[in-house]
């Protein structure tokens, strides 16, 4: 267990070092001092205001990461989280504004609409894959464009708020459909928030989602079937898992969670869906699932790192340093992390096989060699 933990932390540390090195080179080429830049970036995040900002931004990232990760666990690539959450948020915003309900029910209703829409939209890709063998990468990418088109159409006329002037957006959600902030809760615990700083209310839902994801994956039969299908599809089929049903269920589940991506901005900040609504959360989710290795805690860490880099680069332009350094940092970090994970995985697996062989009583060496050869040479 210890070895796995060390391996799990060694890779991101290595990747961070590589990312900082790459960014430093980029800064030097641009004629900036890496030392100054990174010092300024560090200063930017050193306040309650910044930490709150980072957490607020990390929440939808986290939901996006989990939505994608559940597909990754069985080698399904849901590139369509972007379209699923945008349609989900749009229809949820419109439906939420159209009904009158008591507060908790109203919030639950909005979320339910988003989940159902996300799931239904993802189901299209799932059915195409199961029925006709259409690769989900292609279909979800194309469905993203269709979603954008549908959203634009709905906003242009049917769901447009006529009193919003030139802005194309839905009507605002009433107060009963908005999530309260968490400042009060944290103040009773002794935290102080400067005025104007708000810890948004979707955080507990994101945490619950993470716990639910963990339980589903590691404690339920569905999660077991899902992991087996991802790790060894032939063994899954032999054991009696129906691959078609598994594919369809997983894509729909991924879409359902994707429907929730837009809930943090919708219920705590924007209160309506329109041109100003964040649109790139789905793709961020892909990066974070990779970075966090589909692990509920890992994705959380990745989401926080992502939001931190974004916060830290905000002030750079006022100092005349190009903000693009943040994107370079994110990109090189992701790339380095994926490579480092693979390197560390191979090493730990070889070490594990060796350690097991040493601690195993009475195994002729040749037997271990056979096992090594049969795993496709993974051990060497």
């Amino acid at each position, binding site marked *: *267990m210890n070895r796995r933990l060390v391996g799990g932390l060694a890779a991101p540390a290595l990747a961070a070092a590589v990312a900082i090195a790459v960014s430093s080179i980029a800064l030097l080429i641009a004629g900036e001092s890496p030392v100054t830049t990174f010092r300024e970036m560090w200063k930017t995040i050193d306040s309650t205001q910044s930490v709150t900002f980072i957490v607020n931004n990390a929440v939808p990232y986290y939901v996006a990461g989990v939505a994608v990760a559940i597909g990754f666990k069985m080698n399904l690539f849901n590139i369509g989280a972007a379209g699923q959450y945008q349609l989900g948020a749009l229809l949820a915003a419109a439906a939420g504004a159209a009904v009158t309900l008591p507060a908790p029910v109203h919030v639950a209703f909005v979320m339910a609409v988003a989940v159902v829409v996300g799931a239904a939209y993802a189901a299209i890709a799932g059915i195409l894959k199961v029925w006709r063998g259409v690769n989900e990468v292609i279909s979800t990418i194309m469905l993203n464009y269709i979603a954008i088109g549908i959203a634009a159409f709905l906003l242009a006329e049917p769901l447009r708020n006529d009193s919003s002037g030139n802005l194309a957006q839905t009507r605002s959600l009433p107060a009963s459909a908005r999530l309260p902030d968490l400042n009060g809760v944290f103040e009773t615990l002794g935290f102080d928030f400067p005025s104007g700083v708000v810890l948004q209310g979707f955080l507990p839902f994101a945490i619950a989602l993470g716990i639910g994801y963990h339980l589903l994956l590691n404690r*339920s*039969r569905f999660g077991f079937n899902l992991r087996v299908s991802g*790790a060894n599809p032939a*063994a899954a089929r032999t054991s009696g898992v129906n691959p078609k049903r598994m594919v369809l269920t997983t894509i729909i589940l991924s879409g359902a969670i994707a429907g929730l991506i837009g809930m943090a901005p919708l219920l705590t900040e924007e209160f309506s869906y329109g041109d100003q609504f964040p649109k790139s959360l789905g793709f961020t989710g892909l990066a974070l699932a990779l970075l966090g290795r589909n692990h509920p805690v890992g994705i959380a860490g990745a989401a926080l790192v992502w939001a931190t880099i974004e916060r830290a680069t905000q002030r750079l332009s006022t100092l005349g340093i190009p903000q693009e350094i943040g994107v370079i940092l994110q990109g090189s970090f992701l790339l380095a992390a994926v490579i480092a994970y693979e390197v560390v995985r191979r090493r730990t*697996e070889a070490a594990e*096989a060796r350690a097991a062989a040493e601690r195993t009583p009475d195994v002729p060496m*040749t037997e271990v*060699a056979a*096992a090594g050869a049969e795993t496709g040479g993974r051990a060497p």
Partner: protein
Amino acid sequence: MGPLAIELHDIVKRFPGVVANDGVDLTVRRGTIHAIVGENGAGKSTLMKTLYGAHRPDEGTIVVDGTERTFRSPSDAIHAGIGMVFQHFMLADNFTVWENIVLGDEPGSPLRLDVHGARRRIAALGEQYGLDLDPDELVAELGVGEKQRVEILKVLFRHAKILILDEPTAVLVPHEVDELFGSLRELTADGATVIFISHKLDEVLAHADAITVIRAGHTVGEIDDPRSVSAHQLAEMMVGSELPSPETREKTVRDDVLLEVRDLTIEAGAVSPMAAGALPAAITQGEVMGDAAPVVTVAGGHRPLDGVSFSVRAGEIVGIAGVEGNGQAELIEAIMGLRDATGTVLVDDKDLRGVSTLERRLCGLGYIPEDRQRDGMVLTMPLWENVLLGHQGGPPFVRSGMINRSSAKDRCGRIVEEFDVRTPGIDVNAFTLSGGNQQKLIVGREMTADPRVLVAAHPTRGVDVGAQAVIWDILRDARAGGLATVLVSADLEELIGLSDRLLVMLRGRVVAELDPSNLTPSELGSYMTGAQQDPAGAAP
């Protein structure tokens, strides 16, 4: 005696934690067919990879045609005239025969492919060595034997004078085996040298000019005259001790029929519905999903499974014999509900029509799949999670959809202890176990679920002699305890020794029912190839 084509001296190849080759010597004369035999894991494939340049040995020398060589890559080996024909073909299905042969070594200039020259050479090579092929046929439409010929031509096209074949006959039917060795004879008559790896000792004795036996990474025997040894002696050299006997003792057959199969049929061209379409890309590429079956369907055109009926009583082991690809795998998949088939399967008088595979386990069916690493376990999961595999359909491991981890861990601990699985613990990943111990874990998993009927496919394939003896004991004890067992195996001694009754399958049908008590492996072999017919006519 011709000059030496290959001399390997003291080859040592280490992988992390293991020594796969520990001082292997190999001497092969030019113009001969040389067989290398040994158990799984003895180091044969590692040695051949060394010779083929796939990796470099840690110690030792390679001498080819009297010159010492160092191979940095397979292309170095090809330049030295050494070519390898792999067990798993590496052909592009949507290319024609000649395109596949020239692929990677295209004749002509970089801008112009010399199509006519290539076809002429291929035709000439084919004619010379009896490797009959239509150069314009799509590889996807070829049978297994023809694909192998393409692979051989591919190597010859690259001017190889030394051919290495890794278990070339594993996938072939008997007449294809004869054709193959006919072609190889033509090659050696022309001065080429052939090295082949095989498990089939009868074949080795019939076709090889010399034999090298490898055991536990060492050369333990070099036989220049195969007529001087028997298959039994060869096997004992391979395992290094007296062979354990699969012989069962007194009959334990009872009256109650626990498994009844009636008229089980799979139509020709039917592909397992689960295999088609709907899977993540990696699965659908053919490698994973029962690839043997569709190939046979294409090649033969007959039904993969054709009206098979039999019953198994409590305390009885019914052996299914047959050359690989004659319907045994389909029969098992149909019994387990992994393939659609018409006909009836009754377990303990319960009709399993419409019952899912997971529920079949709960009805008392146990299953030891043919390929443990592909179908039987998940190598990157811990042992205790592998104990769940196939048994996640219900109690004791799963209740209301949630996994009971402690019961799975307890069961895993019990299996490790009772079935002598050598492992440092139940939390290690399955890939850290040797093949024999992986198999003991799978056998233990099925037996501790207390099945009424066990379907065992090649239960001792590729395991060491010790594990083999343990598994035989387990099967015998379960038989005495009233288990009904269907045993499919390619090991004829195992089949004859363990079974109470033997059914022989050929082209999807049961063609003979035999009493194993006075049957020799060679007699059984002649039934399997159809050379000998059931005296009493085809079994019901």
